[in-house]
């Protein structure tokens, strides 16, 4: 224990710089070893993610050939290069559907659904999550029970939670009984949108709370004591101390929630069903096109979603990047400070747990 607490002061200066330049068994010839050790991981990522993504991009410029072969008179099969047609078709309005935002092309309907579900869900989840974290941070006892309870929604498979909420939102279900009204949540109506939002918020708000709590606990009590001495109100403490200091953790959590909600599939698929335009996300649309062997458009929509996700991630990371620098002086208990690029591996670790779990 004693060594562990003493280390953070001594380690960064002596070890971080010292070993970089001197001859050392630990650091000499490391690059080769490192690449050997990383090779399996990198090869697998290239094979299971890299190559399919490239293939998907290629696919987006082709269409399944449904024409008749002039020589044989049979259906030609195979695929034909169509250039940007899969992308430009979304502007042609060939496939208009009636959604939450009026009648428009099915792609744009899915795009807007994805965007608005994400915005509404992430805002609600963040507010609820932060509130939960604040309550838990104030607690004296029973934090373990709350933490266990919070992990319940997280551990339930999304598809199971979708079916669970389907029962709750049934037209003669318990939600309508509590409300005393007959809302048709599952009938591809405007209420379906909110049913999705409620179910998704339930599943993930608590986990944002858990991550935020971890961030809150790194704030030293002295800061609050100093603020109290200076006469700061509770609200001022929250806005001026808690929020800025918990921001690095929170931003990462929100980023991963946002990316996860953008690719939402299981929940609307299981709860409302496929082909319901009020809640159809880009993932569902692309999946449906792919299973109906329209690989070209499916790939095109998936690529649009991919670019969308990258864009959002990029915007977040610009904010996040600034935070990593701003975070450099925040005292963290028992955590070695790293330099340069290694810094990135710190906070996102916990957020990634959620990202993977919520797939």
């Amino acid at each position: 224990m004693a060594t562990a607490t003493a280390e953070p002061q001594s380690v960064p200066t002596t070890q971080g710089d010292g070993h970089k330049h001197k001859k050392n068994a630990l650091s000499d010839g490391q690059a080769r070893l490192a690449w050997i050790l990383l090779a399996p991981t990198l090869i697998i990522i290239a094979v299971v993610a890299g190559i399919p993504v490239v293939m998907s991009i290629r696919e987006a410029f082709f269409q399944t050939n449904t024409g008749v072969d002039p020589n044989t008179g049979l259906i030609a099969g195979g695929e034909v290069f169509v250039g940007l047609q899969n992308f430009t078709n979304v502007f042609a309005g060939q496939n208009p559907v009636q959604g939450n935002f009026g009648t428009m092309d099915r792609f744009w309907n899915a795009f807007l659904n994805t965007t608005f579900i994400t915005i509404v869900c992430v805002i609600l989840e963040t507010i609820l999550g932060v509130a939960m974290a604040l309550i838990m941070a104030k607690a004296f006892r029973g934090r373990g029970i709350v933490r266990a309870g919070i992990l319940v929604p997280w551990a339930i498979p999304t598809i199971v939670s979708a079916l669970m909420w389907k029962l709750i939102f049934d037209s003669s279900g318990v939600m309508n009984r509590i409300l005393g009204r007959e809302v048709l949540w599952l009938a591809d109506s405007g209420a379906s949108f909110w049913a999705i939002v409620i179910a998704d918020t339930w599943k993930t708000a608590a986990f944002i709370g858990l991550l935020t709590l971890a961030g809150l606990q790194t704030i030293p009590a002295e800061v609050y004591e100093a603020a109290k001495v200076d006469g700061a109100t509770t609200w001022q403490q929250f806005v001026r101390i808690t929020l800025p200091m918990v921001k690095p953790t929170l931003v990462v959590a929100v980023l991963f929630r946002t990316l996860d909600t953008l690719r939402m599939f299981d929940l609307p698929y299981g709860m409302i069903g496929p082909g319901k335009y009020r809640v159809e996300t880009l993932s569902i649309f692309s999946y449906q096109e792919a299973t109906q062997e329209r690989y070209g458009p499916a790939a095109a929509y998936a690529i649009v979603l991919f670019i969308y996700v990258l864009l959002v991630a990029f915007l977040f990371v610009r904010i996040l990047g600034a935070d990593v620098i701003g975070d450099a002086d925040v005292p963290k208990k028992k955590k070695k400070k790293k330099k340069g690029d290694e810094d990135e591996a710190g906070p996102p670790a916990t957020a990634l747990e959620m990202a993977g779990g919520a797939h």
Partner: protein
Amino acid sequence: MSTTTADVHEEHLSQEEVERLAHPKRPLKQRIGVIASYVGMAAIVLYCIIPFYWMVVSSLRIPTEGRSTEFIPSPASLENFQAVFSAQNNFGRSLVNSLIVAGTTTILTLLFGIIGAYALARLRFRGKGAVLWLIMACSMFPLVVLLPPLLKMFSSTEPFTWFPYWINTYQSVIIPGLSFGLPLAVWNLTAFFKQLPVELEQAAMVDGCTPGVAFRKVILPLAAPGVFTTAIIVFIGAWNEFLLALTFLQDASMQTATVAISKFTGTTGFDTPYGTIMAAGVLVTVPLLVAVLIFQRRIVAGLTAGGVK
């Protein structure tokens, strides 16, 4: 930390006495704060538990009462749980399939993730930042991007006629599943390895170990809680995976549990068999909840102690 101190006090003093001793000047305000925090915590737990409670309650009704809105099932019955395992649902088989898929994904992921993460946590080399970004980006991208080319490939249609027919095989889900499992594992394990002081290996090497032996004999045992935690997280992710399994496992005998549940049909075919679905949901979730409680303890141990004592 605060929990332990409170527990120690509790052996001698009641909660109120602790509060009074801790804050003798403002007992009333303090007490209100304590009550408010308990109310808040109860609200959080209820918020998280109630929908799950509804699932459990609905699974315990008699099958004909599937949509009942009574808060306590009357009469209670385990019939739904029997119905889950009726022959037409193929649920037992799907649980085995889930276990195979999730288990294999976890093992492969850990196997490659551990050595990769060790390199990222310990070794110095150019391009580490790029590798970290690559792995991070890999965990971000939407899984649906993989579907069009893989579906074409695995069903060996036109340009991929050379490719073996992989629809309804475990590998068709396990291999694409690595694309989210592996980045997750590498990221988590890197964080865990970094928490262990490098002096541990240095000491081992001074004692004559090669770096490989030092890793195996010193680092790996100490990182066991981290490896275990990572294993559970990856396993839960793979167990809950739906999109890949739905796309590539179409045959009833190959389906994983999540897909099987989504395809449950009643005897009539029109009425959704909610009781059976909820019972299956409980069966799929309870093992995970048990694992999560263990994982809870492990991650706390991993983060606070980390074997650095």
